[in-house]
């Protein structure tokens, strides 16, 4: 072999060459001092790296720290889960109590608001019908409001999903 098989030397050291490649490198190493020196250096370097990092150890208290963080996280998530289940139940209960106490007043208030909305819609439709120029701004406003509410809803749903 006339060329130095430099690109194979590392794989040779790691015994990751196939039989033919390995034989080729070995034949070259018998004649080439420079490649032999490289292989010797690579083996020595590998041993040094393994030796150095075998001595690197994690701090003794790391395991306790990790387990403590896990315990804290699971406790807080249990509280959050319990909290998220209790809040809607509490809300429903409060609504039932309020309705049983102020039920009649609430029904009257609701029918009054409904009548007010119906009247407002009736008046608005008449005004718009009598002034056709108002159609365009009203439609624009309606489309704008729909878009804004749609975007807000999307943002709320995304933030609650995270």
């Amino acid at each position, binding site marked *: 072999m006339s060329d130095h098989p430099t690109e194979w030397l590392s*794989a040779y050291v790691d015994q990751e060459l196939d039989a033919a490649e390995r034989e080729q490198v070995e034949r070259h190493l018998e004649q080439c001092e420079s490649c032999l020196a490289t292989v010797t250096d690579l083996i020595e370097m590998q041993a040094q*790296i393994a030796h150095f*990092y075998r001595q*690197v150890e994690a701090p003794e208290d790391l395991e306790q720290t990790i387990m403590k963080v896990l315990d804290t996280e699971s406790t807080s998530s249990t509280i959050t889960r319990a909290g998220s289940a209790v809040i809607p139940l509490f809300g429903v209960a409060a609504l039932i109590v309020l309705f049983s106490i102020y039920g009649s007043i609430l029904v009257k208030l609701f029918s009054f608001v409904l009548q007010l909305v119906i009247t407002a819609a009736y008046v608005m439709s008449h005004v718009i019908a009598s002034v056709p120029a108002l159609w365009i701004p009203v439609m624009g406003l309606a489309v704008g409001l729909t878009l804004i509410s749609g975007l807000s809803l999307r943002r709320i749903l995304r933030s609650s999903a995270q």
Partner: protein
Amino acid sequence: MDEELYRIIREAKQGKKDAFAILVRRFKDYVYRYAYGMLGDRMEAEDVTQEAFLKCYAALPRLENEFSFVSWLQRIVSNLCSDHLKKRQKEKTKPIQETLSQMEISEARQRHSAQDLKWTIEESLKQLSPDHRQIILLHDVQGFRYEEIAQTLEIPVGTVKSRLNAARLALRQIMKKGEEEE
């Protein structure tokens, strides 16, 4: 890897904390060693190790089979180290840090020439590119074979072979340079 370990991994997957604590005990040095090798800083390596195990605990139920636990854990810590290195690069104080690391290197040079010692393997590794450092650590420290490295890094075996070769030759050159400077 033995049956006992697979049983512990299965139990940890079911959310048993005692089993997970055994996994932490067994693999903390493994994770920390790699993080320290990549980041060269004990505090940062500690943070990454902690982060890696928390991620591991959260994602463990999604691990498809317990046989691939080690390479899966390795992938978690590799990704975290890459994120930390990227964050480091983005930091505004980067020039200061670079100057500091240059100062550290020159201090190390002075120290070592004074003590008439060779460049340590750690100092030399720090000067390699993250890709080169990573592949050397995966093979020589974590004990992965070429095929396993290829799967973990999602690159062809041929690339593993050439990258590891280039990394080692670069390391050899750095160490030789260190010797010449003394």
